[in-house]
């Protein structure tokens, strides 16, 4: 059962995936673990949502995928960011920053 406090914020999963992949190509589990680690366990990624998001982002042309060998000599599906993906990440990051600062301002005045 998903715990609300550790679920990814609605609508941010795509951005988190894009951000994670902007560093280096990765496979699904790697991305999930990276998001968890960097958020220090605040966000827990639902595998179903994650895989669905991969399909969506890939079809949108932001990700490419290929089956590759992993470090421990197994085959895994690796995802990498396309040029369009980079652009999208910038867009989403800007958008997010704007929203967050707006919310932060609101919270300050209310408080």
């Amino acid at each position, binding site marked *: 059962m998903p715990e609300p406090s550790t679920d990814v914020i609605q609508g941010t999963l795509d951005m988190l995936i894009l951000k994670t992949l902007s560093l280096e190509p990765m496979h699904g589990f790697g991305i999930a673990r990276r998001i968890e680690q960097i958020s220090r366990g605040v966000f827990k990624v639902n595998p179903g949502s994650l*895989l669905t998001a991969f399909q*969506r982002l*890939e079809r949108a042309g932001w990700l490419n995928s290929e089956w590759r060998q*992993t470090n421990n000599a197994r085959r895994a*599906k690796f995802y990498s960011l396309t040029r369009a993906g980079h652009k999208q990440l910038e867009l989403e990051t800007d958008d997010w920053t704007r929203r967050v600062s707006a919310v932060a301002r609101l919270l300050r005045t209310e408080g």
Partner: protein
Amino acid sequence: MSFFRQLTRGLRVLTHRRAADRELSDEVQDYLEQSIAAHVANGLTPDEARRAARMELGNATAVREQVREAGWENVFATFFADLRYGLRHMLRTPGFTIVTILTLALGIGATTAIFSAVNPILFASLPYPHAGRIMGIWDFAPYGSRSHVAFHTYRELAARSHSFNAVAVTKPWQPTLVSAAEPERFDGQFVSASYFRVLGVTPFMGRDFDPSDDRLKGPNVVMLSNTLWKRRFGGDPTIVGRQITLDDNLYTVVGVMPAGFENVLAPTAELWTLLQYDSANIASFQTREWGNHLRMVGRLEPGVNSDQAKKELEAIVLAPMQEFPRPPWASHRQGFVVNSLQDDVTRGVKPALLAVLGAVTLVLLIACVNVTNLLLARGAQRSAEFGMRAALGAGRLRLIRQLLTESLLLAVIGGVAGMGVAVLGVRALVALSPPELPRIGAISVNGTVFGFGLAITTLIGLAVGLIPALHSSKEDLHAGLQQGSRRTVAGHQSTRKILVVTEVALALVLLVSAGLLLRSLERLFAVVPGFDAANLLTMQVQTYGHRYDDDATCNRFFAQSLEAVRAVPGVSDAAFTSQLPLSGDADVYGAELETANNVHETHDVFRYGVSPGYFETMGIPLRSGRLFDAHDVTAVPMRPVLINESFAKSKFQGRDPIGQRLRIGGQVSRPWDIIVGVVGDVKQTSLAVSQSDAVYVSTAQWLWADGTQWLVVRTRGDPTSLAPAIRQAIWSVDKDQPVVHAGTMKELLAASAAERRFALILFEAFALTALLLAAAGIYGVLSGSVTERTREIGVRSALGATPANILVMVLRQGITLTAVGVAIGLAGAVAASQALAAMLFGISRLDPVTYLGVIAMLLGVSAMSCWVPAWRAARVDPATTLRAE
């Protein structure tokens, strides 16, 4: 780019379903294993790691399902899955499938076929530019019915009216073309020069008629139809300006009409020439220019409507007599009829076509009701299945979708089969169509009709699919699961009962209509035509060539032909007449009676010029006086004439008409004719029209020689087989004379009722379909009800009900449904019969025999369809049923 990716990836999933599935499950599996490896690295034992990883991932199938559902292609995949499932289900229940598809095919096919036929006739505009502006214009006969117009009326209206862009008149023309082989007679039209301008059609080659040629003794010019040009003249491109011989005269070809030209006023016409009437002498009334015998059409100016045009025409004919002299029969006191040409050409067939259209709509309605009922019944049988699927996680929308897919599948298959029915139906309709049906060439299964068929198919699919879908999903699904024990009698039975009642009611309406038409036709054929139609051969003989311009030569030709025909073996009697009963001829003259106070009244009568022996050949009885004999062929000062019974009754009121005097043909200078005999009435116009007055004269004593006459031959054996020998006999006198319209009197009798018969055949077919569908509906509901009530019936018989009790119980249920349907249907039938009134003959639209007969038949059929389920119910073994609990 992204759209392209969306498309290709989706398509790849659809086309390589298995590879895509494998890739996805590989990815999920991989994810799981990575997760396990990570947990192991964090110090868990492999078992603990596996469990933890599984916990995190959740149900792997659910994950795969989640990913799969996200793509657009999933909609299709589900649709195909539903389709496959639906097909499999249909094959498992072939009875249901066949009945449903047949019902739909009949309903859709019949509707499409009828729509195909009716559309070009009643609804599509005529094939002319701005066809809505073309009007048919009629005068009124003194006795009130619409009549053709006289040339001078037309000329006066054309000269003074401003409402019309162009007006034209036309009358039939039957020119003969003699070639090396047999003489060929064509159908054509005499037209005023403006005719093609009214229609808005210009020649494909050459020029239109020149108005300055349209005068008395103008040049002989002819316009050819495209088919005639190709057929007789090999599509000769130099035909315009050349001369051809028609009726022994040279005609200059002025033009050829375009290939697609449809001439609705005379569909068989292949050539046109100018009317060339005399525009002068308007004040002399005894001329053909004052005979009401021309069909008038006009093209309205833009912005003028038919009412305005009618008012204008009626104002014109109020002109003072000196300004516009006119005879009593063209007084125009009753004004004019100005109606659209479309209404004009469809006037005769409109009631029949609308009735047929109404009937086929009822059939479609019954088909829909029946299919709904079938789907509903199946939905009830499948409630357990749907309960199971819901329990396994199928959402309500998903179930509705599944059912809708299945009903659409049925509807589409039914629609395709229906198209087949429609194609065959249209062919049958054209083959069966009565000769009066206009625009028959324009009838075909066309794109519009196909669209119509497809639209109703889809609508029916959705409409019919929705009802069981809502039913199934509304039901408590747990109850559905428990229904394995059939403890509950579902409430949907009431819906199905309502549907069956509807079906019975609709079927009754159709059956009563068909019954009324059937009885009308029986009555019609029971009408005595006034002559003996058995073994009577008829054909039209026409003189051709200027040598017959002389009356004596013409009369001699007919006399010699008669001799030759009488000599043919197998001929027992033969005669000529100027007009033949039921052939469509209507040769009406004014007959003036000599009265005591010297006030001469004129009555309209049919004028027959006959050869002596006509009455004997036709079998028309003599009532009093004498018939014509061999002496009545020479000119005498006072011609002997015969009148018919109705004339004698209506005009002589008990006085003996023999020896009374009358004058026919309107020439005051002529001496009186003397009535020498009274003969029986003969149906001239049609069997349904009661007899008008008639006067017979001997052809040889008439004012002029009739150049076209009907030969009637009484034969000893089959009349049809004698036709070639008789034709040869006429040609032995003169081989250039056209002989046309050979046929038997029986055929003419049948043709005179063709329109009624056409409607009757269609109504019978529809009524039969309706009856079968209603019977299937009753059977379906009762049989479903018995299945659902098996336990109840078991308990009843365990408690002492005899098989007979149970039989009666089920029968009563079925008969009650029928009775309610009949009661409702009766009201509908009474209303519907009003629409049929124009097509009924000799019976009331509330004819009790028809109504009682139909009710008895419907109850009988319903009892038969109740019998099987009732019998099955009566055989329910209480022990087996109760043990099954």
